[in-house]
């Protein structure tokens, strides 16, 4: 039976990475007996192996909790949200399905960059915020200080914050009570035509697309004909259900509820995230506002180390895309690396995760080129082109102007590291915007800088320059013109397209020198001398030489053990195969990402 709207609450948990979102979700599931204890695994909602390993949530997931208080039984729908800046779009998506949010803040760390970013997202979405100070069991917990930060920095009443330790299970009942008492029930017309939001969609090999949905008006049940308003396609509903958090079929999904719909959709593109689901015969007149579609920001080439794996890579990419419409790929040819794909990602972490999943889940060995942003190039001919692969930048004399994307970054650091953080931003061509004093210890720094500068080691550098205390959040800003050039690398006189980068003219020479000497250390000595050069256009700006290999000969076959010797050579041959041959120069895979780890 469906619950009256007043007995439903839809909420999510927001917070900075590592402040304890997933642990709190687990505790709520446990406390409402949504899962028997034996089913509990740490961080149940992090479904992917990779998510659990990295301790982060990548895809949003959901669970329905049954909770009884004051003689009333409630349906609490928890929508878990990803906790990394690359996945902000997933967070904002989840928020559209909720009336309230638990904002979790680490009692020892205090408010961080993502705490703020997420709180603002929640406020923008008119959500009721329940602040929670987590990890109060830690000896370093400073709940009063954090309470003050919530009030002064975030701007919500600090005395409303609940004191909790999700890890040891303190304060969980109070959270459940606050969800019921503080978060408003969903609004909606139970008798109006169906209006439901596609929160997310995943692809199942047997069932096709499974749409995660929040019903705003009306209800939906198997057998009905539904329509996706943006794509204008109609489908028959095969199954509807709720998350326990496993999928559990129910007779119908009613107004205010969160659940899933399976309707025989075979292509994930047809169930666009943010689209509105309605009845085919009696559609709702006005669709939901939907989401801004996320465009990839970071691009990189993925190539099979073994050229025979090209088709396997294509299949793997297609399969992954079924569950993640936020990245794209298209075939690309590199003189150096052969056939591969140019892939677009939401950010660096997203890129790493896709790369890792391709290798782990599909058994591929890949070479990944240095990430790039999308440059906007206006040519002298009056034409405009987008360049996401530095190798494809037209020659300088054809170019009128190059623009690059910028980001607005928000850094929170302890006072003693302000200098370090500012110096880093300055070096990365950052433009200072503002500084806010958060409390006695910490400041917030606002800068605008080119996104491209964030792709080379920015976050790890910030972390190390602030002894791990700095936190970072960013927002996409505008495209701005810059004096950029393309730096090419030549091995043995042949340009290696995969090593090309676009960078500011004023640092190009120095970067060329650094890159060339780094490559010299990475490229093993070959049978002949290998010159490594860096060039801007026709001008060589740096040169090093890998001297030829002089000696590689093993002494003897131990006691006539020739098989052992042969096996050893066979293994070495395997190792060589994993290197990329350019001209006849063997290049180890690390060389292709050398750009990323350049010292300042």
């Amino acid at each position, binding site marked *: 039976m469906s619950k009256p709207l007043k007995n439903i609450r839809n909420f999510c948990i927001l917070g900075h990475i590592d402040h304890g979102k997933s642990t709190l979700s687990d505790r709520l599931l446990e406390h409402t007996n949504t899962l028997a204890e034996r089913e509990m695994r740490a961080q149940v909602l992090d479904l992917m192996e990779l998510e659990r390993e990295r301790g982060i949530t990548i895809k949003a997931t959901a669970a329905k909790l049954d909770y009884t208080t004051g003689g009333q039984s409630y349906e609490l729908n928890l929508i878990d949200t990803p906790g990394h800046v690359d996945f902000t779009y997933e967070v904002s998506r989840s928020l559209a399905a909720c009336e309230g949010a638990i904002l979790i803040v680490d009692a020892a760390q205090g408010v961080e960059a993502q705490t703020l970013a997420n709180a603002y997202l929640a406020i923008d979405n008119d959500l009721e915020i329940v602040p929670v100070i987590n990890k109060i069991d830690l000896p370093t917990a400073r709940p009063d200080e954090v309470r003050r930060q919530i009030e002064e920095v975030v701007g919500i009443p600090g005395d409303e914050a609940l004191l909790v330790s999700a890890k040891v299970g303190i304060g969980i009942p109070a959270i459940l009570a606050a969800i019921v008492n503080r978060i408003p029930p969903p609004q909606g017309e139970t008798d109006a035509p169906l209006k439901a939001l596609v929160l997310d969609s995943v692809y199942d090999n047997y069932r096709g697309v499974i749409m995660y949905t929040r019903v705003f008006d009306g209800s939906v049940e198997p057998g009905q004909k539904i329509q996706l308003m943006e794509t204008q396609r109609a489908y028959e509903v095969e199954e509807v259900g709720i998350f326990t958090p496993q999928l559990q079929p129910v007779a119908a999904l009613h107004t205010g509820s969160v659940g899933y719909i399976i309707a025989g959709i075979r292509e994930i593109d047809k169930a666009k995230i943010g689209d509105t689901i309605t009845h085919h015969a009696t559609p709702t007149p006005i669709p939901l506002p939907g989401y801004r579609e996320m465009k990839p920001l970071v691009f990189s080439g993925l190539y099979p180390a073994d050229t025979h794996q090209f088709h396997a890579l294509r299949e793997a990419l297609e399969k992954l895309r079924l569950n993640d419409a936020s990245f794209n790929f298209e075939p690309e040819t590199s003189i150096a690396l052969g056939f591969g794909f140019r892939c677009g990602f939401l950010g660096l972490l997203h890129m790493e995760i896709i790369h890792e999943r391709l290798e782990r889940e599909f058994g591929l060995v890949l070479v990944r080129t240095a990430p790039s942003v999308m440059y906007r190039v206006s040519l002298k001919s009056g034409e405009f082109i987008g360049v996401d692969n530095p190798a494809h930048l037209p020659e300088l004399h054809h170019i009128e102007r190059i623009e690059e994307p910028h980001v607005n970054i928000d850094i929170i650091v302890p006072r003693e590291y302000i200098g370090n953080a500012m110096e880093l931003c300055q070096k990365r061509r950052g433009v200072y915007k503002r500084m806010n004093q958060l409390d006695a210890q910490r400041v917030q720094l606002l800068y605008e800088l080119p996104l491209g500068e964030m792709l080379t080691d920015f976050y790890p550098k910030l972390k190390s320059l602030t002894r791990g205390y700095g936190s970072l959040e960013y927002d996409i800003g505008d495209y701005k013109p810059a004096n950029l050039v393309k730096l090419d690398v030549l091995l043995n006189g042949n340009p290696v397209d995969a090593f090309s980068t676009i960078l500011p003219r004023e640092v190009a020479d120095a970067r060329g020198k650094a890159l060339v000497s780094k490559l010299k250390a990475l490229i093993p000595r070959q049978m002949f001398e290998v010159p490594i050069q860096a060039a801007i256009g026709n001008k060589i700006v740096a040169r090093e030489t890998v001297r030829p290999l002089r000696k590689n000969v093993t002494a003897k*076959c*131990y006691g*006539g053990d*020739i098989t052992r010797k042969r096996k050893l050579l*066979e293994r070495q041959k395997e190792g060589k195969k994993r290197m990329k041959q350019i001209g006849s120069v063997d290049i180890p895979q690390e060389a292709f990402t050398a750009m990323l780890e350049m010292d300042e």
Partner: protein
Amino acid sequence: MASSIYLHIPFCATKCYYCAFNTYPFHKEQAKDYLVALREEMALYAPRTTPLSTIFIGGGTPSMLSAAALTQVFADLNAHFQIRADAEITVECNPGTVDAEKLNVMRHAGINRLSFGLQAMQNETLKQLGRSHTVADFLHSYQLARDCGFDNINIDLLFALPKQTMAEWQDTLTKVISLAPAHISVYNLVMEEATPFYEWWKAGELPLPSEDTEADMFHYAIETLTARGYEHYEICNFARPNRTAKHNLVYWNNQACIGLGTGACGYIDGTRYANTRGIADYIDILQRGIKPVTHAERLTEQAEKAETLMLALRKREGISLAAYQERFGEEIETELGEIYGEWIDLGLLERTETHLRLTNRGLFLANEVFVELMS
């Protein structure tokens, strides 16, 4: 059928820090049982031999066996196999483990070649390698052997040792050449897994010479030894005229050889095999009258080709074009395909009237070539 035997004596007084050979501390009782087992194994292989032209008794330290035990081994060999009058019979000796009695026993048993593991001519270096002898021990043993009438003696040397300088290596070579042995082997030190050196090296605690120094040392050895009348006939081996190691040539020509003893490897009728490495296991299996083989692999034609090329190219003369054609029914050039031309262009290989061989440069880069031969 085979006409060569390698016989392994797995005992050593101490284990050198770089050594990954199959060796164990010496126990008198166990040695006795071991020799009985060896006899059993000889019996199993006897029908598969033609008159033997080479025997190599290696280790371990065969010279650790008592004179009586050595007598026993030779008697057993003679009882089971026909040995040609001109056969080359070698025993590996460690300096300090031989005396006049043992040497006389060997001499009378028909042993005509000795191989001394000297490695270096500096006491400090020997100590760092974990060797159990001094330079004086070696000189004493070597003199005894000469006095006993051994005129075909090999001396094994190691280079590219931790902290070793070029001057030290030159010193070693000069002193060894002055002894005028019939044969000298020079091996570069290789880091073998499961040795103390390997562990130290992994931990960054073993200061090995650079690749360039190693190449210079190798180069110096070739120059010096050939100038002093030694023929450089295999990558690491140098011999006075007519003193090449016939037994080792069996390996390099990829010919059949029976391996006897723990961990020994053999190659017979197209199959390579390796014996169990444990002494107790070896004795136990042979007591049941079974061959103590733990690995056997019948070579595919491809593997046999690769091995034949890899082994024969170690010889300075290279691989005989005719012999290859006869063995495999095709020309080497056909087998190598594209890389044949590439290697010649790179100056790694050269072709003489009758042979295909590594150039002087190719000799230093032999592994790069051998790796490419693998399928």
